[in-house]
């Protein structure tokens, strides 16, 4: 256990809790954005930019993006280990998918930076 905590090695409990904790953040963010579209009669550029220049929304968006990266890291790993039997192919696909998740986060950071 000490060794597990001292290194960055993942374990099942950590994955279980991370998957659910990030799911709660992602679901709240999705409901927040869908709620914004439902309650806003006419979304203009000014209103849209105003939304994401708000510090709370910026932090919420960034948190959702980081949670997405953690959530998909675990979820896609579960899918890959179940369906891709070839270890090399699985490693390559896992690498590419995690890279794509990182790109999503990076794009998000630069977009939020500029608003």
């Amino acid at each position, binding site marked *: 256990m000490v060794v597990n905590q001292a290194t960055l090695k993942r374990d099942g409990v950590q994955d279980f809790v991370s998957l659910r904790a990030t*799911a709660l953040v992602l679901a709240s963010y999705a409901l927040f954005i869908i709620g914004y579209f439902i309650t806003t009669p006419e979304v203009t550029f000014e209103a849209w930019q105003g939304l994401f220049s708000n510090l709370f929304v910026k932090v919420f968006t960034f948190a959702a993006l980081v949670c997405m990266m953690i959530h998909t890291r675990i979820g896609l790993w579960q899918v890959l280990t179940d369906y891709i039997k070839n270890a090399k192919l699985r490693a390559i696909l896992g690498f590419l998918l995690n890279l*794509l998740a990182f790109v999503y986060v990076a794009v998000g950071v630069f977009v939020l930076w500029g608003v």
Partner: protein
Amino acid sequence: MWNLARLRHRALRNNLDGSAKVCLAGYNNNSWTLYESDGQVTVKKQRPVNLDLSTIQMPATAKASILHRVTGVALFFALTFVIWAWSESLSSPQGFEFVKGLFTGFIAKFIAWGTVTVLSYHIIAGIRHMFMDMGYFEELESGNGSAKFILVLWAIVAVAAGVWIW
């Protein structure tokens, strides 16, 4: 066939005290061959395996489970469109108008509807999953019931999302 004859011979030889009924059983060509002590040989054919996929249906719980996976993977790729549209719409007033203009067309509306629909299923199934973590809907009947419930609920949400977007 030489080995079947050998097996039969060994079956008879091994039955030294004559008490055993079946002395040897061999499996070959999807059937069991039983060599009995009195020399009788019985071939029991294996029950037929149903591989006609058109007559097999997954239970509701299996459908709910695989859909959760499929929608999860689909959402991950849908994010490419979502994040691109989000980035473009915030870049400039022209970018915003460009993205807004796209949503008058069928393809963008369909992608938006697909994303919202897939997202709603993933959230609904995720909530059911958390109930199961807490020990509910774990029996055969309640599990099938909750799975059917979320599938119906999803259909309603999908139609509502379609009405909202179009």
